[in-house]
């Protein structure tokens, strides 16, 4: 029964993705319709993504290396900190980066004291800075996994051969990096080509407009649906190509387990190397923490002064997050059951992961085109946002649930069958208790991502339907920074709080 429902779920997901994407392709009329500014957007999208991925990986290597070979109090906190940006609402981080690197931020203030020209965060440099803020921690965690996968025996052997740190790097670490880094680079490249909120808040203008932002502008300012669709098709080609290339590479599962150990090393005991590692870790923590502290710390002061409109937006975001979490979990549950039970269920996982290649704005454009003949799409802003978030969280939820579902079948499948436990009884007595942990993680991740999402909602929403991230963006646009910081605090409490609650709930018992 469950497997058949999973099949139906997979078909629904496939339709929900392919129909809007076909609508985009159908509305996009001829590549000749691309004007020079569109080509500029395509070019900027590609080079900023390449640079973002490159810088993220370059910075991540020394940080991961330092974390791999040092043991210190608070190391596990650093690992948690490196995981946080993944569920941190993008617009909050942007606000934090503005507080540090903006015109009146601490960096420019310091530069002013020593008489150096101030730098602006708006433009390509801001877009890349924000992408590095989000992806350097991800890259660090993934590279750290690579480092920890070097067998301890090899390092002992290296020590017995009196390797220096340079020898170890050349013989052991460099081959590992060469194996893992290209995949990580591609993943970050892909993420950076589809990131919309960063470009919306920090980019713009002829020299810093991404394809995603161009879609939004064609849609929102020119109301040129066929141009939006054409740009959507361009974005689809970028995402599809990158996804095809990365098909063979393992994608990150977001929160790798087992990073809480350091491998003993004998070659890096020197004072210089130790100081270098301490400095690297401290700088990385500062880079991640200072923006957050500046936003959230000042946000506390204004929390009580928030208008009723902000609270109403927070309520809308909460509902979007909860519904998205419930629907993602339901889809992922039945789909992973079908993947595990059916002889050729592998294609269902492919369907569930298709959204990795698409982008929320493209999907949103497609939905708009599909809905337009029937209903005013703007009236469906919140359902569409919920739906898009469900589809985009599905790959992560599947990655969490499939291994657990497989264990469940291998360990207790025959026992359940031999006792005649099936259907809803199986769900209640066996599946829910055994899948609590990955289920709670998946629900928490979906809720956090949906609560903090600033994507299609920007495309669809009218003022009376804004979610909290959109209100926050509007406050920033109106230069009401105090209110923005308070709203940012509220948003962080909402999304990290939801993640924490679901994840804890899954771990209990």
């Amino acid at each position, binding site marked *: 029964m469950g497997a058949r429902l999973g099949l139906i779920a997979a078909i629904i997901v496939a339709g929900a993705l392919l129909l809007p994407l076909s609508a985009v392709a159908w509305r996009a009329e001829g590549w000749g319709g691309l004007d020079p500014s569109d080509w500029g957007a395509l070019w900027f999208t590609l080079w900023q993504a390449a640079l973002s991925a490159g810088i993220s990986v370059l910075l991540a290597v020394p940080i991961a290396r330092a974390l791999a070979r040092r043991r210190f109090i608070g190391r596990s906190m650093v690992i948690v900190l490196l995981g946080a940006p993944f569920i941190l609402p993008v617009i909050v981080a942007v606000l934090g980066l503005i507080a540090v690197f903006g015109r009146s931020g601490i960096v420019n203030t310091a530069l002013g004291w020593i008489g150096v020209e101030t730098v602006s965060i708006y433009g390509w440099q801001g877009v890349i800075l924000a992408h590095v803020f989000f992806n350097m921690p991800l890259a660090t965690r993934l590279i750290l996994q690579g480092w920890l996968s070097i067998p301890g025996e090899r390092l002992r052997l290296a020590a017995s051969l009196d390797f220096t740190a340079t020898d170890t790097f050349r013989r052991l670490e460099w081959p590992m990096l060469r194996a893992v880094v290209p995949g990580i680079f591609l993943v970050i490249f892909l993420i950076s080509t589809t990131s919309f909120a960063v470009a919306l808040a920090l980019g713009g203008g002829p020299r810093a407009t991404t394809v995603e932002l161009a879609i939004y502008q064609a849609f929102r300012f020119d109301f040129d649906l066929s141009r939006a669709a054409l740009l959507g098709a361009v974005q689809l080609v970028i995402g599809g190509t990158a996804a095809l290339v990365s098909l063979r590479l393992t994608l990150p599962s977001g929160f790798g387990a087992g990073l809480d150990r350091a491998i003993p090393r004998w070659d890096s005991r020197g004072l210089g190397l130790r100081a270098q590692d301490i400095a690297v870790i401290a700088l990385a923590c500062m880079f991640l923490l200072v923006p957050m502290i500046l936003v959230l710390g000042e946000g506390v002061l204004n929390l009580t002064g928030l208008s009723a409109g902000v609270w109403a937006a927070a309520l809308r975001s909460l509902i979007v997050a909860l519904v998205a979490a419930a629907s993602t979990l339901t889809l992922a549950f039945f789909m992973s059951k079908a993947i595990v039970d059916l002889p050729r269920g592998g294609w269902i996982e492919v369907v569930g992961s298709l959204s990795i290649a698409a982008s929320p704005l493209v999907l949103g454009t497609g939905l708009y085109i599909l809905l337009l003949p029937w209903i005013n799409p703007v009236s469906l802003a919140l359902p569409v946002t919920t739906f898009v978030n469900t589809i985009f969280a599905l790959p992560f939820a599947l990655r969490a649930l499939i291994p657990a579902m497989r264990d469940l079948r291998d*360990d*207790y499948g*025959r*026992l359940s*069958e*031999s*006792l*005649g*436990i*099936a259907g809803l*009884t199986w769900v*209640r*007595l*066996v599946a829910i*208790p*055994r899948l609590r942990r990955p289920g709670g993680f998946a629900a928490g991740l979906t809720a956090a991502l949906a609560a903090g999402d600033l994507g299609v909602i920007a495309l669809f929403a009218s003022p009376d339907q804004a979610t909290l991230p959109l209100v926050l963006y509007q406050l920033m646009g109106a230069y009401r920074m105090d209110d923005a910081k308070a709203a940012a605090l509220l948003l962080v409490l909402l999304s990290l709080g939801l993640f924490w609650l679901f994840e804890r709930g899954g771990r209990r*018992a």
Partner: protein
Amino acid sequence: MLKLDQIRLEQGEFQLFADTVFDEGGITALMGASGSGKSTLLAAIAGFLPPAAGRITVDGKDITDLPPGERPLSLLFQDQNLFPHLTVAQNVGLGLRPDLRLTSDQKIARDSVLERVGLTGMGNRLPRDLSGGQQSRAALARALLRGRPWLLLDEPFSALGPALRSEMLTLLRDTAKSEGLSVLMVTHAPEDARMIADRTALISDGVLEPPVATGALFDDPTPALRAYLG
């Protein structure tokens, strides 16, 4: 009477042929070298592996196409017999109703069977708080509670130490006798078969030989058994 009527099992290259009758009452051991297909045969009887050919009947009723839970038999696996997140009482109660909505009479029946296997007062514990032997007892209790005429065991108690294992085998023999259960037990240990099995059936060269009295078989081993014992 459990009848394997011209059964042929196939798993990839592997083939097993069985055309035998297991009589009611008493314990029959199923022996054979590792890889001979003992567990595969048991899985087929329990309903996890559809035979490529032939029928399985119990007392004349064809069970070949019945789902595992509806067959007139209970099954004890090597391990993983209990759900770790359910209490002992719940695990045992599954034998009465898979949805665990037990009436008060059924709860009394459950508690009395727990008492019979020596687990009085341990109903509220989780399996992880039980010793290996106690976990085996709980699984046995559930099999008793289900009241199916046949009990199939796949290398039971093999995770237990020698003393506990012989204790559990004795408990199995005694309960089988007092409850009138017919037992079919896969084992690789000749001493287990000698200790409690009335009859022993051997699998060799992809064929199940008919069961014969254990004592006689071991006193005068067939070539196949001699090859297995080494």
